[in-house]
Protein backbone atom coordinates (compact mmCIF):
# COMPACT_ATOMS: atom_id res chain seq x y z
CA UNK A 1 0.00 0.00 0.00
CA UNK A 2 1.33 3.41 -0.94
CA UNK A 3 1.42 6.07 1.70
CA UNK A 4 -0.21 9.34 0.80
CA UNK A 5 1.28 12.18 2.79
CA UNK A 6 -0.78 14.76 0.93
CA UNK A 7 -3.54 14.05 3.40
CA UNK A 8 -1.96 16.61 5.74
CA UNK A 9 -2.37 19.36 3.15
CA UNK A 10 -6.08 18.68 2.82
CA UNK A 11 -8.61 21.19 4.04
CA UNK A 12 -10.49 19.70 7.01
CA UNK A 13 -13.88 20.67 5.60
CA UNK A 14 -13.94 20.24 1.81
CA UNK A 15 -10.92 17.85 1.66
CA UNK A 16 -9.26 19.75 -1.19
CA UNK A 17 -5.48 19.96 -1.13
CA UNK A 18 -4.37 23.40 -0.01
CA UNK A 19 -1.28 24.93 -1.59
CA UNK A 20 1.58 25.29 0.88
CA UNK A 21 -0.12 22.89 3.28
CA UNK A 22 -1.09 25.59 5.79
CA UNK A 23 -4.62 26.99 5.83
CA UNK A 24 -5.30 30.70 6.13
CA UNK A 25 -6.55 30.32 9.69
CA UNK A 26 -8.82 32.76 11.51
CA UNK A 27 -12.56 32.56 11.97
CA UNK A 28 -13.47 32.43 8.29
CA UNK A 29 -10.17 31.03 7.01
CA UNK A 30 -9.37 27.48 6.06
CA UNK A 31 -7.69 24.85 8.21
CA UNK A 32 -5.65 21.91 6.98
CA UNK A 33 -4.97 18.67 8.83
CA UNK A 34 -1.41 19.87 9.35
CA UNK A 35 -2.73 22.98 11.15
CA UNK A 36 -4.95 20.78 13.25
CA UNK A 37 -2.10 18.38 14.04
CA UNK A 38 0.11 21.20 15.30
CA UNK A 39 -2.76 22.61 17.35
CA UNK A 40 -3.36 19.20 18.89
CA UNK A 41 0.34 18.95 19.72
CA UNK A 42 0.03 22.33 21.42
CA UNK A 43 -2.93 21.05 23.46
CA UNK A 44 -0.95 18.00 24.52
CA UNK A 45 1.96 20.21 25.59
CA UNK A 46 -0.38 22.54 27.52
CA UNK A 47 -2.14 19.70 29.33
CA UNK A 48 1.13 17.90 30.12
CA UNK A 49 2.99 21.07 31.12
CA UNK A 50 0.29 22.38 33.46
CA UNK A 51 -0.19 18.93 34.98
CA UNK A 52 3.53 18.65 35.57
CA UNK A 53 3.46 21.93 37.50
CA UNK A 54 0.53 20.72 39.62
CA UNK A 55 2.27 17.37 40.18
CA UNK A 56 5.56 18.96 41.22
CA UNK A 57 4.02 21.50 43.59
CA UNK A 58 1.56 19.11 45.26
CA UNK A 59 4.03 16.21 45.15
CA UNK A 60 6.72 18.34 46.83
CA UNK A 61 4.35 19.30 49.65
CA UNK A 62 3.01 15.78 50.20
CA UNK A 63 6.43 14.18 49.89
CA UNK A 64 7.87 16.62 52.43
CA UNK A 65 5.16 16.25 55.06
CA UNK A 66 5.60 12.47 54.94
CA UNK A 67 9.14 12.87 56.28
CA UNK A 68 8.53 15.56 58.91
CA UNK A 69 9.70 14.48 62.37
CA UNK A 70 7.32 14.56 65.35
CA UNK A 71 4.24 14.88 63.22
CA UNK A 72 2.67 11.46 62.70
CA UNK A 73 -0.66 12.90 61.61
CA UNK A 74 0.77 14.96 58.78
CA UNK A 75 2.81 11.95 57.70
CA UNK A 76 -0.31 9.79 57.80
CA UNK A 77 -2.28 12.26 55.68
CA UNK A 78 0.59 12.20 53.20
CA UNK A 79 0.57 8.40 53.10
CA UNK A 80 -3.19 8.30 52.57
CA UNK A 81 -2.88 10.81 49.77
CA UNK A 82 -0.32 8.64 47.99
CA UNK A 83 -2.33 5.43 48.44
CA UNK A 84 -5.53 7.10 47.28
CA UNK A 85 -4.17 8.57 44.06
CA UNK A 86 -1.91 5.65 43.25
CA UNK A 87 -4.48 2.89 43.49
CA UNK A 88 -7.19 4.24 41.19
CA UNK A 89 -6.61 4.07 37.42
CA UNK A 90 -5.90 7.41 35.78
CA UNK A 91 -8.84 7.09 33.40
CA UNK A 92 -11.26 6.60 36.32
CA UNK A 93 -9.77 9.61 38.09
CA UNK A 94 -10.16 11.75 34.97
CA UNK A 95 -13.79 10.65 34.71
CA UNK A 96 -14.35 11.55 38.36
CA UNK A 97 -12.89 15.03 37.85
CA UNK A 98 -14.78 15.57 34.65
CA UNK A 99 -18.21 14.11 35.42
CA UNK A 100 -18.54 13.98 39.18
CA UNK A 101 -16.54 16.80 40.80
CA UNK A 102 -18.29 19.73 39.03
CA UNK A 103 -21.68 18.40 40.19
CA UNK A 104 -20.72 17.50 43.74
CA UNK A 105 -18.56 20.53 44.50
CA UNK A 106 -20.27 23.71 43.25
CA UNK A 107 -16.99 25.64 43.37
CA UNK A 108 -15.81 23.56 40.40
CA UNK A 109 -19.01 23.98 38.38
CA UNK A 110 -17.60 26.73 36.18
CA UNK A 111 -14.03 25.43 35.98
CA UNK A 112 -12.88 24.97 32.37
CA UNK A 113 -12.80 21.32 31.27
CA UNK A 114 -9.11 21.54 30.49
CA UNK A 115 -8.37 22.61 34.07
CA UNK A 116 -10.32 19.63 35.43
CA UNK A 117 -8.21 17.27 33.34
CA UNK A 118 -5.05 19.07 34.51
CA UNK A 119 -6.11 18.55 38.13
CA UNK A 120 -6.84 14.88 37.46
CA UNK A 121 -3.54 14.16 35.72
CA UNK A 122 -1.57 16.45 38.03
CA UNK A 123 -2.85 14.96 41.30
CA UNK A 124 -2.48 11.40 39.95
CA UNK A 125 1.17 12.15 39.22
CA UNK A 126 1.65 14.09 42.46
CA UNK A 127 1.35 10.83 44.39
CA UNK A 128 4.23 9.36 42.40
CA UNK A 129 6.35 12.50 42.77
CA UNK A 130 5.62 12.50 46.52
CA UNK A 131 6.77 8.89 46.77
CA UNK A 132 10.04 9.70 45.00
CA UNK A 133 10.69 12.82 47.04
CA UNK A 134 10.09 10.93 50.27
CA UNK A 135 12.57 8.28 49.15
CA UNK A 136 14.98 11.04 48.16
CA UNK A 137 14.79 12.77 51.54
CA UNK A 138 15.11 9.49 53.41
CA UNK A 139 18.12 8.53 51.30
CA UNK A 140 20.03 11.51 52.66
CA UNK A 141 22.42 10.70 55.51
CA UNK A 142 20.91 11.51 58.92
CA UNK A 143 23.85 13.80 59.52
CA UNK A 144 22.43 16.31 57.04
CA UNK A 145 19.35 16.78 59.17
CA UNK A 146 21.38 16.98 62.38
CA UNK A 147 23.81 19.43 60.80
CA UNK A 148 20.88 21.70 60.00
CA UNK A 149 19.59 21.40 63.55
CA UNK A 150 23.06 22.04 64.99
CA UNK A 151 23.25 25.27 63.03
CA UNK A 152 20.14 26.38 64.90
CA UNK A 153 17.83 26.14 61.88
CA UNK A 154 14.13 25.64 62.49
CA UNK A 155 12.53 22.58 60.86
CA UNK A 156 11.26 24.78 58.04
CA UNK A 157 14.69 26.27 57.53
CA UNK A 158 16.66 23.04 57.40
CA UNK A 159 14.19 21.57 54.96
CA UNK A 160 14.33 24.71 52.87
CA UNK A 161 18.13 25.15 52.89
CA UNK A 162 19.57 21.68 53.48
CA UNK A 163 17.30 18.69 52.82
CA UNK A 164 15.08 19.72 49.89
CA UNK A 165 17.83 21.16 47.67
CA UNK A 166 19.76 17.92 48.06
CA UNK A 167 16.75 15.62 47.71
CA UNK A 168 15.44 17.31 44.57
CA UNK A 169 18.81 17.03 42.90
CA UNK A 170 19.23 13.33 43.57
CA UNK A 171 15.71 12.43 42.40
CA UNK A 172 16.04 14.04 38.98
CA UNK A 173 16.44 10.68 37.16
CA UNK A 174 13.10 9.26 38.41
CA UNK A 175 11.50 12.67 37.88
CA UNK A 176 12.63 12.44 34.26
CA UNK A 177 10.59 9.29 33.74
CA UNK A 178 7.68 10.95 35.53
CA UNK A 179 7.86 13.95 33.19
CA UNK A 180 7.90 11.60 30.21
CA UNK A 181 5.04 9.60 31.71
CA UNK A 182 2.92 12.69 32.21
CA UNK A 183 3.36 13.53 28.54
CA UNK A 184 2.24 10.05 27.52
CA UNK A 185 -0.54 9.95 30.11
CA UNK A 186 -1.99 13.20 28.78
CA UNK A 187 -3.32 11.02 25.94
CA UNK A 188 -6.02 9.89 28.38
CA UNK A 189 -7.53 13.39 28.13
CA UNK A 190 -8.81 12.12 24.79
CA UNK A 191 -11.50 10.21 26.68
CA UNK A 192 -13.09 13.47 27.82
CA UNK A 193 -12.80 15.19 24.43
CA UNK A 194 -9.78 17.38 24.98
CA UNK A 195 -8.52 17.91 21.43
CA UNK A 196 -4.99 16.68 22.01
CA UNK A 197 -2.82 14.42 19.84
CA UNK A 198 -4.59 11.11 20.46
CA UNK A 199 -7.96 12.73 19.93
CA UNK A 200 -6.65 14.17 16.67
CA UNK A 201 -5.26 10.79 15.60
CA UNK A 202 -8.55 9.02 16.14
CA UNK A 203 -10.73 11.78 14.69
CA UNK A 204 -8.60 12.65 11.66
CA UNK A 205 -7.86 8.98 11.01
CA UNK A 206 -11.57 8.32 10.74
CA UNK A 207 -12.38 11.43 8.68
CA UNK A 208 -9.70 10.87 6.07
CA UNK A 209 -9.56 7.07 6.07
CA UNK A 210 -5.78 7.55 6.10
CA UNK A 211 -5.23 6.22 9.60
CA UNK A 212 -1.73 4.89 8.99
CA UNK A 213 -0.25 8.21 7.84
CA UNK A 214 -2.05 10.13 10.59
CA UNK A 215 -1.04 7.68 13.33
CA UNK A 216 2.55 7.66 12.07
CA UNK A 217 2.76 11.44 12.27
CA UNK A 218 1.27 11.48 15.77
CA UNK A 219 3.54 8.67 16.94
CA UNK A 220 6.58 10.54 15.63
CA UNK A 221 5.46 13.65 17.52
CA UNK A 222 5.14 11.62 20.73
CA UNK A 223 8.60 10.15 20.23
CA UNK A 224 10.11 13.58 19.49
CA UNK A 225 8.43 15.01 22.59
CA UNK A 226 9.64 12.18 24.81
CA UNK A 227 13.17 12.62 23.49
CA UNK A 228 13.03 16.40 24.00
CA UNK A 229 11.91 16.01 27.63
CA UNK A 230 14.65 13.46 28.15
CA UNK A 231 17.30 15.87 26.81
CA UNK A 232 15.98 18.83 28.83
CA UNK A 233 16.02 16.77 32.02
CA UNK A 234 19.51 15.43 31.24
CA UNK A 235 20.68 19.03 30.88
CA UNK A 236 19.11 19.98 34.23
CA UNK A 237 20.60 16.87 35.81
CA UNK A 238 24.07 17.78 34.55
CA UNK A 239 23.84 21.36 35.74
CA UNK A 240 22.50 20.49 39.18
CA UNK A 241 24.84 17.63 40.04
CA UNK A 242 25.84 17.43 43.68
CA UNK A 243 29.65 17.58 43.82
CA UNK A 244 31.22 14.61 45.55
CA UNK A 245 28.54 12.02 44.74
CA UNK A 246 29.14 9.05 42.45
CA UNK A 247 26.80 10.50 39.82
CA UNK A 248 28.71 13.77 39.65
CA UNK A 249 31.93 12.22 38.37
CA UNK A 250 30.41 11.43 35.00
CA UNK A 251 32.05 8.71 32.92
CA UNK A 252 34.84 7.36 35.11
CA UNK A 253 38.22 8.81 36.01
CA UNK A 254 39.01 11.53 38.49
Amino acid at each position, binding site marked *: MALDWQVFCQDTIDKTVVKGCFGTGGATGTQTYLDWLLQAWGQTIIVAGLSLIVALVVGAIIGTIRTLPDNPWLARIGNWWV*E*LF*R*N*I*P*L*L*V*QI*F*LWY*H*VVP*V*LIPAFAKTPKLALVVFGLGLFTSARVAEQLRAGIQALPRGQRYAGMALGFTTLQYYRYVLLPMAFRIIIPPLTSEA*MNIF*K*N*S*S*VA*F*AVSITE*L*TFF*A*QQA*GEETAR*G*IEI*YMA*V*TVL*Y*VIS*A*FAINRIMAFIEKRSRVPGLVASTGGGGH
Partner: protein
Amino acid sequence: MLDFSFFTGEVFRGYILQGLYFSLALTAVSTLGGTVFGTVLALMRLSGKGFLAWPATVYVNGMRSIPLLMVLLWFFLLVPFIIGRPIGAELTAVITFIAFEAAYFSEIVRAGIQSIARGQIFAGQALGMSYGQNMRLVILPQAFRNMTPVFLTQTIILFQDTSLVYIITAHDLLHGFTVAGNNLSHPRESFILAAVFYFVICFSLSWAVKKLQAKIAIIR
Protein backbone atom coordinates in the same frame (compact mmCIF):
# COMPACT_ATOMS: atom_id res chain seq x y z
CA MET B 1 -27.61 14.09 46.28
CA LEU B 2 -25.86 10.79 45.70
CA ASP B 3 -27.95 7.66 45.73
CA PHE B 4 -26.18 4.32 45.71
CA SER B 5 -29.30 2.24 46.30
CA PHE B 6 -29.45 1.27 42.62
CA PHE B 7 -26.35 -0.87 43.06
CA THR B 8 -27.78 -4.26 44.01
CA GLY B 9 -26.42 -7.76 43.77
CA GLU B 10 -28.38 -8.19 40.59
CA VAL B 11 -26.78 -5.12 39.00
CA PHE B 12 -23.39 -6.42 40.10
CA ARG B 13 -23.98 -9.80 38.49
CA GLY B 14 -25.62 -8.32 35.40
CA TYR B 15 -23.18 -5.57 34.55
CA ILE B 16 -19.98 -5.71 36.59
CA LEU B 17 -19.03 -9.36 36.94
CA GLN B 18 -18.28 -10.03 33.29
CA GLY B 19 -16.19 -6.86 33.06
CA LEU B 20 -14.29 -7.72 36.22
CA TYR B 21 -13.60 -11.16 34.81
CA PHE B 22 -12.29 -9.69 31.56
CA SER B 23 -10.06 -7.15 33.36
CA LEU B 24 -8.54 -9.87 35.52
CA ALA B 25 -8.14 -12.29 32.61
CA LEU B 26 -6.52 -9.56 30.49
CA THR B 27 -4.14 -8.80 33.35
CA ALA B 28 -3.22 -12.47 33.77
CA VAL B 29 -2.78 -13.22 30.07
CA SER B 30 -0.75 -10.11 29.33
CA THR B 31 1.42 -10.60 32.41
CA LEU B 32 2.19 -14.11 31.23
CA GLY B 33 2.68 -13.18 27.57
CA GLY B 34 4.55 -10.02 28.50
CA THR B 35 6.93 -11.97 30.72
CA VAL B 36 7.68 -14.55 28.05
CA PHE B 37 8.32 -12.01 25.27
CA GLY B 38 9.92 -9.62 27.73
CA THR B 39 12.43 -12.28 28.78
CA VAL B 40 13.23 -12.99 25.12
CA LEU B 41 13.73 -9.26 24.50
CA ALA B 42 15.92 -8.93 27.59
CA LEU B 43 18.07 -11.91 26.54
CA MET B 44 18.41 -10.42 23.05
CA ARG B 45 19.56 -7.11 24.49
CA LEU B 46 22.07 -8.78 26.80
CA SER B 47 23.37 -11.21 24.19
CA GLY B 48 26.11 -8.85 23.07
CA LYS B 49 25.30 -9.63 19.44
CA GLY B 50 24.43 -6.46 17.53
CA PHE B 51 21.93 -8.01 15.14
CA LEU B 52 19.91 -9.30 18.12
CA ALA B 53 20.41 -6.41 20.52
CA TRP B 54 19.55 -3.63 18.09
CA PRO B 55 16.03 -4.64 17.06
CA ALA B 56 15.16 -5.42 20.68
CA THR B 57 16.44 -2.03 21.87
CA VAL B 58 14.53 -0.19 19.16
CA TYR B 59 11.37 -2.13 19.99
CA VAL B 60 11.60 -1.57 23.74
CA ASN B 61 12.46 2.13 23.55
CA GLY B 62 9.88 2.71 20.83
CA MET B 63 7.08 1.11 22.83
CA ARG B 64 8.12 2.99 25.94
CA SER B 65 8.02 6.38 24.28
CA ILE B 66 4.46 6.22 22.96
CA PRO B 67 1.30 6.17 25.09
CA LEU B 68 -0.49 2.86 25.58
CA LEU B 69 -3.62 4.50 24.24
CA MET B 70 -1.84 5.23 20.96
CA VAL B 71 -0.59 1.63 20.77
CA LEU B 72 -4.17 0.43 21.31
CA LEU B 73 -5.38 2.61 18.45
CA TRP B 74 -2.53 1.36 16.23
CA PHE B 75 -3.44 -2.27 16.79
CA PHE B 76 -7.12 -1.53 16.47
CA LEU B 77 -6.35 -0.07 13.02
CA LEU B 78 -3.57 -2.37 11.86
CA VAL B 79 -4.61 -5.86 12.89
CA PRO B 80 -7.83 -5.93 10.83
CA PHE B 81 -5.90 -4.30 8.00
CA ILE B 82 -3.25 -7.02 8.00
CA ILE B 83 -5.43 -10.08 8.47
CA GLY B 84 -8.30 -8.68 6.44
CA ARG B 85 -11.13 -8.88 8.94
CA PRO B 86 -12.02 -7.19 12.25
CA ILE B 87 -11.15 -9.27 15.31
CA GLY B 88 -13.07 -7.42 17.99
CA ALA B 89 -12.02 -5.09 20.76
CA GLU B 90 -11.27 -7.81 23.33
CA LEU B 91 -8.77 -9.71 21.19
CA THR B 92 -7.19 -6.41 20.09
CA ALA B 93 -6.78 -5.52 23.74
CA VAL B 94 -5.05 -8.85 24.50
CA ILE B 95 -2.60 -8.54 21.57
CA THR B 96 -1.84 -4.89 22.36
CA PHE B 97 -1.24 -5.51 26.04
CA ILE B 98 1.10 -8.44 25.43
CA ALA B 99 3.08 -6.44 22.87
CA PHE B 100 3.16 -3.31 25.03
CA GLU B 101 3.88 -4.92 28.38
CA ALA B 102 6.68 -7.06 26.90
CA ALA B 103 8.68 -3.84 26.54
CA TYR B 104 8.17 -2.94 30.20
CA PHE B 105 8.73 -6.45 31.53
CA SER B 106 11.89 -6.80 29.46
CA GLU B 107 13.40 -3.86 31.34
CA ILE B 108 12.53 -5.51 34.65
CA VAL B 109 14.04 -8.83 33.57
CA ARG B 110 17.13 -7.07 32.25
CA ALA B 111 17.62 -5.28 35.57
CA GLY B 112 17.01 -8.59 37.34
CA ILE B 113 19.67 -10.39 35.29
CA GLN B 114 22.11 -7.53 35.72
CA SER B 115 21.63 -7.74 39.48
CA ILE B 116 23.19 -11.22 39.51
CA ALA B 117 26.85 -11.33 40.53
CA ARG B 118 29.23 -12.04 37.62
CA GLY B 119 30.77 -14.90 39.56
CA GLN B 120 27.52 -16.85 39.17
CA ILE B 121 27.94 -16.87 35.39
CA PHE B 122 31.59 -17.90 35.67
CA ALA B 123 30.64 -20.61 38.16
CA GLY B 124 28.09 -22.00 35.71
CA GLN B 125 30.64 -21.93 32.89
CA ALA B 126 33.24 -23.58 35.10
CA LEU B 127 30.80 -26.44 35.68
CA GLY B 128 30.70 -26.90 31.93
CA MET B 129 27.17 -25.61 31.44
CA SER B 130 26.08 -24.35 28.05
CA TYR B 131 24.67 -20.80 27.70
CA GLY B 132 21.13 -22.16 27.77
CA GLN B 133 21.71 -24.33 30.82
CA ASN B 134 23.46 -21.52 32.65
CA MET B 135 20.56 -19.12 31.98
CA ARG B 136 17.87 -21.65 32.77
CA LEU B 137 19.39 -23.25 35.86
CA VAL B 138 21.53 -20.53 37.43
CA ILE B 139 20.82 -16.98 36.27
CA LEU B 140 17.11 -16.71 35.49
CA PRO B 141 15.78 -18.37 38.68
CA GLN B 142 17.79 -15.92 40.78
CA ALA B 143 16.91 -12.99 38.54
CA PHE B 144 13.19 -13.77 38.72
CA ARG B 145 13.36 -13.96 42.48
CA ASN B 146 15.21 -10.67 42.79
CA MET B 147 12.73 -8.89 40.58
CA THR B 148 9.55 -10.33 42.13
CA PRO B 149 8.48 -7.15 43.99
CA VAL B 150 9.04 -4.86 40.97
CA PHE B 151 7.40 -7.45 38.79
CA LEU B 152 4.28 -7.60 40.97
CA THR B 153 4.11 -3.81 41.21
CA GLN B 154 4.19 -3.66 37.42
CA THR B 155 1.35 -6.19 37.34
CA ILE B 156 -0.76 -3.92 39.56
CA ILE B 157 -0.05 -1.00 37.23
CA LEU B 158 -0.96 -3.28 34.35
CA PHE B 159 -4.28 -4.06 36.02
CA GLN B 160 -4.96 -0.33 36.32
CA ASP B 161 -3.98 0.19 32.70
CA THR B 162 -6.51 -2.39 31.55
CA SER B 163 -9.13 0.29 32.24
CA LEU B 164 -7.86 1.99 29.07
CA VAL B 165 -9.41 -0.68 26.87
CA TYR B 166 -12.66 1.10 27.71
CA ILE B 167 -11.62 3.52 24.95
CA ILE B 168 -11.82 0.85 22.25
CA THR B 169 -15.13 -0.28 23.84
CA ALA B 170 -13.87 -3.61 25.12
CA HIS B 171 -16.11 -4.89 27.90
CA ASP B 172 -13.89 -4.43 30.96
CA LEU B 173 -14.60 -3.50 34.58
CA LEU B 174 -14.81 0.24 33.90
CA HIS B 175 -17.03 -0.40 30.89
CA GLY B 176 -19.35 -2.48 33.08
CA PHE B 177 -19.69 0.40 35.54
CA THR B 178 -20.33 3.05 32.89
CA VAL B 179 -22.95 0.92 31.14
CA ALA B 180 -24.66 0.20 34.46
CA GLY B 181 -24.52 3.89 35.34
CA ASN B 182 -26.01 4.98 32.04
CA ASN B 183 -28.71 2.30 31.87
CA LEU B 184 -29.86 2.87 35.44
CA SER B 185 -29.33 6.65 35.16
CA HIS B 186 -26.89 6.96 38.02
CA PRO B 187 -23.70 7.68 36.04
CA ARG B 188 -21.98 9.70 38.78
CA GLU B 189 -22.50 7.15 41.53
CA SER B 190 -21.30 4.52 39.11
CA PHE B 191 -18.00 6.33 38.49
CA ILE B 192 -17.47 6.63 42.24
CA LEU B 193 -18.20 2.94 42.71
CA ALA B 194 -15.76 2.09 39.92
CA ALA B 195 -13.07 4.12 41.71
CA VAL B 196 -13.83 2.31 45.01
CA PHE B 197 -13.65 -1.08 43.28
CA TYR B 198 -10.31 -0.40 41.63
CA PHE B 199 -8.98 1.12 44.84
CA VAL B 200 -9.89 -1.85 46.99
CA ILE B 201 -8.38 -4.33 44.53
CA CYS B 202 -5.17 -2.39 43.90
CA PHE B 203 -4.71 -1.37 47.53
CA SER B 204 -4.98 -4.90 48.82
CA LEU B 205 -2.66 -6.17 46.11
CA SER B 206 0.00 -3.54 46.80
CA TRP B 207 -0.33 -4.25 50.54
CA ALA B 208 0.31 -7.92 49.83
CA VAL B 209 3.33 -7.03 47.68
CA LYS B 210 4.72 -4.92 50.51
CA LYS B 211 4.37 -7.87 52.91
CA LEU B 212 6.04 -10.19 50.44
CA GLN B 213 8.85 -7.73 49.87
CA ALA B 214 9.54 -7.60 53.59
CA LYS B 215 9.60 -11.39 53.70
CA ILE B 216 12.00 -11.73 50.77
CA ALA B 217 14.25 -9.07 52.27
CA ILE B 218 14.64 -11.13 55.47
CA ILE B 219 15.47 -14.37 53.66
CA ARG B 220 18.20 -12.79 51.57
